[in-house]
């Protein structure tokens, strides 16, 4: 009984994530696609909780759902999509696209199935995941300080770039 419920949670969350993903990419209305993306991302946040990554679950909800999806909805509002919703939705070469993607999935599935035992490492790294936020903070500020600073620089550049791209020319 001890591991039935966590296992069940994984399969329920996997169903939510994959179902939400499929529904996201098949919507005709872009706002509906963004809402189903929120469902998928919340499923992924739940999966992070299941995997003992509490800080990352909170970051996922705050940044992805609360930031990126809101950004998508704002841009969908700015762009007039009613005409686009009435037109043909799938691109001209969609059979080739789906064939390549299904081939990719079959290939990945085959290799995952073939190397199933390799996912378990014999030597243990002797670490711990609790207390999660403190350990993530130690990792970010001690071991990965340089990538952290570079990431903040990347965010600055992206912000300036997005403002420059979206600015109206004042003539």
């Amino acid at each position, binding site marked *: 009984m001890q*591991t*039935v419920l*966590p*296992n069940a949670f*994984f399969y329920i969350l996997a169903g939510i*994530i*994959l179902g939400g*993903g499929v529904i*996201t*990419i098949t919507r005709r209305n*872009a706002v509906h696609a*963004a809402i189903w993306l929120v469902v998928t991302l919340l499923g*992924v946040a739940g999966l*992070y909780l299941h*995997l003992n*990554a509490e*800080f*990352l679950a909170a*970051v*996922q909800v705050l*940044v*992805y759902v609360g930031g*990126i999806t809101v950004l*998508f909805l704002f*841009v969908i509002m*700015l*762009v007039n999509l009613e005409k*686009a919703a009435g*037109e043909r*939705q*799938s*691109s001209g070469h*969609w059979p*080739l696209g*789906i064939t*390549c*993607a*299904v081939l990719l999935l079959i290939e*990945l599935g085959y290799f*995952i199935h073939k190397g*199933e035992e390799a*996912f*378990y490492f014999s030597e243990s*790294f*002797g*670490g711990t*995941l609790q207390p*999660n936020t403190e350990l*993530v903070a130690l*990792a*970010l500020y001690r*071991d990965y300080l340089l990538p952290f600073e570079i990431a903040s620089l*990347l*965010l600055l550049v*992206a912000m300036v*770039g*997005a403002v*420059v*791209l*979206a600015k109206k020319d004042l003539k």
Partner: protein
Amino acid sequence: MPPVPMAHYVFLSAALFTIGVIGVLTRRNVIIILISIELMLNAVNINLVAFSNQLLSVNGQAFAIFVIVDAAAEAAVGLGILIALFRNKETVQADEINLMKW
């Protein structure tokens, strides 16, 4: 009952990645393409966090945080490009952007 096998987590990541790939390759609307790219990045994050849980190392989660930072920056710039494109060409369909096609 044994815990969930590691291969199931990796297969979930691969399946979500493939769903994102189908969205990028199949749809005409540029916004849906950008949403599918976000799905692909989430698939990679699931993989990283699953292995971080199995190896009991927090490095995977730090890597996943950097992937989220990258996804945010890329979504912002991609949507800025979309706005600039829409202002010039009045369309968001990917195959109508064909000025440089021969």
